[in-house]
């Protein structure tokens, strides 16, 4: 979960250049659509910003070259892929999915094939992250375990079974000293990556509800993001779940002060909007971007940390299921149910 530095894209579809320019979130617009043949689930840009990857309901991960739009498939999972992460050098992508597998792939190869696979979890593995120094991989799953693996050898370093509900998200803090894991009930555990010991717990239970009428647990932390200055941790999900089985709920973000571990505020849409925050990213300049999807459709919502409601929102053509921020700090990728990865540019539309 490293925060990028905003840089000028060499061209609207290509790799980033080096001169910093400012994002203009209020000017955000869809600049490109990359279409697959199956609904999409998760998406990530590679660290060098050349590709966007998205997993699909056909068990594949699709890779598009942003400049040429050439599409390649990563085929190897036996179920949907829920999590994607990269080594900081951009050469390797690791993926986890409903088959419980953790798979390493060469990210830039012409036709990527798995180079290593590990049976990581019983049932679904739901999220994966790579430490900022590239030495370890964190995974989590429905088996309520959090696991830390060596990146190079794939050995299990720590098995951390402290959660009492399926674990939805893992993410390293920018220093790499800590790992966060967050579950269905909104319990967020901070682990010391050196010792494997629990360092602290944060409470995002506002993002969970047990609906007695329907007899179901619902909600949870669907994504995590750190601000670039290390001051804030944001947890995305949902609140006001009056009808979990019918997708009647409101997207929301619980914002923490990272130093104190205290909740700063609950952020939510200004107007009635039904959905879930499926993806969260802090922009290097300090604002927070959320992708929401659900019965109310798809949106990009832009928040400032000191405000409850968004300062801008963009309606997307279809419900959104995931979000990533390009290393240039100007482009966003969203994965959608209608088989499309949308690239949004936080700059004025070309004349």
């Amino acid at each position: 979960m490293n925060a990028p530095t905003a840089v000028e894209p060499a061209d609207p579809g290509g790799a980033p250049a080096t001169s910093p320019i400012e994002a203009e979130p209020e000017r955000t617009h869809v600049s490109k659509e990359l279409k697959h043949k199956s609904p999409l689930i998760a998406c990530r840009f590679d660290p060098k910003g050349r590709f966007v990857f998205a997993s699909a309901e056909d068990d594949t991960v699709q890779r598009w070259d942003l400049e040429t739009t050439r599409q390649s498939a990563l085929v190897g999972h036996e179920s949907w892929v829920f999590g994607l992460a990269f080594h900081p050098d951009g050469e390797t992508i690791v993926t986890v999915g409903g088959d419980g597998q953790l798979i390493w792939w060469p990210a830039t190869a012409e036709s990527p094939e798995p180079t290593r696979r590990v049976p990581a979890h019983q049932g679904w593995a739901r999220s994966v992250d790579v430490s900022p120094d590239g030495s370890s991989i964190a995974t989590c799953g429905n088996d309520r375990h959090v696991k830390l693996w060596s990146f190079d050898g794939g050995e299990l370093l720590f098995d951390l079974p402290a959660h009492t509900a399926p674990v939805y998200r893992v993410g390293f803090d920018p220093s790499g000293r800590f790992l966060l894991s967050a579950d269905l009930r909104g319990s967020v555990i901070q682990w010391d990556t050196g010792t494997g010991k629990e360092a602290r717990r944060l409470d995002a239970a506002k993002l969970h509800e047990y609906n007695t009428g329907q007899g179901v647990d619902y909600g949870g932390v669907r994504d995590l993001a750190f601000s670039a200055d290390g001051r804030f941790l944001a947890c995305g999900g949902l609140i006001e779940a009056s009808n979990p089985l019918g997708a009647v709920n409101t997207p929301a973000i619980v914002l923490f002060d990272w130093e104190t571990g205290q909740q700063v505020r609950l952020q939510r849409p200004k107007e009635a909007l039904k959905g879930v925050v499926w993806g969260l990213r802090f922009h290097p300049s300090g604002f927070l971007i959320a992708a929401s999807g659900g019965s109310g459709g798809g949106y990009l919502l832009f928040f400032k940390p000191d405000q409850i409601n968004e300062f801008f929102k963009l309606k997307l053509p279809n419900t959104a299921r995931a979000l990533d921020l390009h290393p240039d700090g100007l482009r966003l990728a969203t994965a959608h149910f209608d088989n499309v990865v949308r690239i949004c540019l936080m700059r004025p539309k070309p004349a």
Partner: protein
Amino acid sequence: MRCSYSCRSAEHLVTRRSFLGEVAAGLGIATGFSGMVLPSVSAELERKQRQILVIWLNGGASQLETWDPKPKTETGGPFRSIETSVPGIRISELLPLTALRMHRLALLRSINTSENDHGKGNYLMHTGRRLVPGQEYPHLGSVAAKFLAPERSPLPGYIHIQPGGGGIGGKEAAFLGPKYGSLNLGNGKAPANTARPESLSVSGASARDALRSHLDDRFARSRRTAETDAYTTTYEQALQLMERREVFDVTKEPARDLERYGTHDLGRHCLLARRLLEAGTTFVKVSHSNYDTHNENFDFHREQVGEFDQSFSALLDDLARSGRLEHTLVVVMSEFGRTPRINANYGRDHWGTAWSIALAGAGIKPGVVVGKTNVKGTAVVDGQVHAGHLFHTYLRCVGLDPTDTYEANGRAIQIADPTASAIEELLA
């Protein structure tokens, strides 16, 4: 259609079967020559021991996440299929414990009820008939309570264990009369007010009951209706229930059984179902909520089916171990299945076109799959049946003739839909 004593209703009519059953019981007790009972009467006696257990997956469980998985297709979703104890039969990976017991189960994968409405689907699956205005048919539980339950059973013939509130559900009995309706145990709790108040002495309670009984008898001599009869029966059953209140208390079961069935509500409810069946209840239904997963179908099914897998497997084991499975029909069903198409919210919607149920026990051929859907599960391609066929099959399994008739309001009504018949491939 109300049951009235002025109209030669089913309440007043003695069917050939029940007549034989009562005579046979009388012969057996009075003469002790049960070995000389006519074969047909013997069969009748055997039928009297049949019980039914229904596990109702409320809201419409997904056939794709249970009995008819379609992995690696665009409709299959993220779960895989697994081998079972019967070579060649695969079910969802969400049912690992049930898979080990597949040799006790039969799967029916070719139901097309063409009904996507909760209420209508519920009625259809419980009665084997479509809901039409002005005509209501009894639910399977009420049919069982009437035709299978011993006349003087201390427990109601039809008990429904459900989440939420409890009470009496007389409506399911339709023209059979409210005394064949369900006793609903809300959240698996004993019926309310079945403990004698401490302020009332045993002798005082007896005297009160004698007075009630006297007044009831006097009233019934001139104004007897199905409702007054149901009132009297219910009162008598309530008194007997007070004596046997412990039957509803699952904490009397060993801790290891509570653990084995699961520490969730369904675990407790299935353990209670076992107690009730052991105590002689004819028809027990356990409802498990909630499968109406228009949103996040896969997470909710993982949670719900996981509970079901544990509790159902434990219950199935115990029924088999005790020998009770031989004379207990077990049905796992819903009001409909769920759409093969996965919607934008990772949900599946209502789907009555091509879905599945599971059966076991009395009269069922174990270890078989009957019927087939196509590769994506969007249509039945072999052995299509509807709810009427299911109702015929259930009755045959417990030794009732589905073509027998009730007489209600002067009309002869076949017990099961006359346009359907039993699914012979499922019958042992």
